[in-house]
């Protein structure tokens, strides 16, 4: 098992129910791949520094996950197929940083 910091960026025009559905779907794939979500938080709708695929804003979802090394590739390839996810970032870390992250505090 390896630890990953994971950030998802979702399209700006999703409704709140669609957003929930997409996040739920992602969580399901993680648990299917024997992964485990240690921590999850939402950074909300943020302005992008530059447009990505005609999006000026995006919903950010941050997660700390624990998943076998070989399965992270499968998870990421699934994310590539999903059109409502415009970008993602998975970073392998030795240990998780303290939560909540500074980004969520900023939104409050």
């Amino acid at each position, binding site marked *: 098992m390896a630890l990953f910091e994971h950030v998802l*960026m979702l399209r700006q025009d999703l409704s709140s129910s669609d957003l929930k559905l997409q996040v739920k779907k992602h969580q399901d794939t993680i648990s299917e791949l024997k992964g485990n979500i240690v921590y999850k938080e939402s950074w909300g709708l943020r302005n992008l*520094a*530059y447009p*990505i695929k005609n999006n000026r804003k995006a919903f950010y979802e941050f997660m700390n996950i624990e998943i076998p090394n070989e399965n992270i590739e499968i998870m990421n390839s699934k994310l590539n197929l999903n059109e409502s996810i415009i*970008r993602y*970032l998975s970073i392998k870390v030795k240990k998780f*940083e303290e939560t909540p*992250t*500074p*980004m969520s505090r900023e939104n409050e």
Partner: protein
Amino acid sequence: MEKQESLKKINKKFDYKNIFPLKKYLSENGKIMPRRISYISMKKQKDLALAIKRARYLALLPYSGK
């Protein structure tokens, strides 16, 4: 008391999730400041560059322009 807090902030590692300390090290054009201007240690400069590049990928910071 204030001094201690500021020291703590300096000792903290640069992180792509915390963009305010990173913004300080960007030029007007959004470029990463060279070490001769930023005047931080090599180790921290490398850390800084990595954090800025990650933040740029997530569109939290611009690649160019303000």
